[in-house]
């Protein structure tokens, strides 16, 4: 019964609406995960901003030794750090906006930032 009631305008509106929904999903969710910048903050020093554009290794000297930071396009990690519990290394690759790795012995935090902030939490 409803089949005959659809007109071309209905199909057009339906298609347009579907396109809007798809575009909204793509726009809202695609750039959210990309980390663009690594912020290296060390006690007593200015935060350093390193763009995550090409692969390289940084070595940051701290009170307990050297923290080796690996940077790859879109992600970064704490590859080696003097902490005995390997907490900094255990944070793994930082690739979503806001992810953090910390080395307490070297008084160092690493955080990646993207353009679009992701969710912290959602509640109603």
């Amino acid at each position, binding site marked *: *019964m*409803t089949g005959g*009631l*659809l*007109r*071309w*305008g*209905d*199909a*057009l*509106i*339906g298609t347009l*609406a*579907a396109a*809007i*929904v798809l575009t*909204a*999903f793509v726009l*809202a*969710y695609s750039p*959210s995960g990309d980390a663009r910048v690594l912020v290296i903050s060390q006690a007593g020093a200015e935060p350093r901003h390193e763009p995550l554009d090409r692969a390289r290794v940084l070595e940051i000297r701290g009170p307990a030794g050297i923290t080796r930071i690996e940077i790859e396009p879109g992600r970064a990690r704490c590859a080696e750090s003097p902490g005995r519990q390997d907490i900094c290394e255990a944070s793994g690759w930082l690739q979503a906006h806001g992810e953090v790795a910390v080395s307490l012995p070297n008084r160092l935090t690493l955080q990646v930032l993207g353009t679009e*902030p992701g*969710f912290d939490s*959602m509640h*109603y």
Partner: protein
Amino acid sequence: MGTPAGDPRAGSDARDRAIAALAAIAIGIQILEAAIPSPVPGIKPGLANIVTLITLLVLGWRAAVAVTLIRVVGSSLLLGTLLSPAFWLSLAGAVASLVLLAALRPFTPRHVGPVGLAIAAAMGHITGQFLLAWAIIIPHPNLPLVLPPLLLAALIAGSLTGILTAQVLADPRIQRHVRKPAPSS
């Protein structure tokens, strides 16, 4: 489009009564719907929109505006949300969907049927609500991330209410009360 059959002033009492009856049905539907628990807050089928669409297609644009505004105010009075954020959100959605329905008015009888109207109205409804929420009620930069699922829900709900509207309009028991039958050309 309205009822070109006859003088619009003639039988305005009957027209007013029809608007009142339709608004009462819409309020009833909206309140029933408010009582149904929803798995996701903010998402509901919007069945009261069926009444707006039927009013639009049978009695015309002005009657649809009247029924919708009476529904928003009347149901908020009964639910106790008058002038609360829920009321403003409801009003913003209603106004936005009415604006879209007005924009589609030139195409209404011939090229766009109830399904297209319902989808447009549902999308307009959620967009209006969202803009109000984002601009005034919860101006949070991350709020747009909630919009895509809401738009998807609106698309689905709009299609459903559109199909239901078409079914209701085709029902002979409804047709009997309709002075001018639903446009079928």
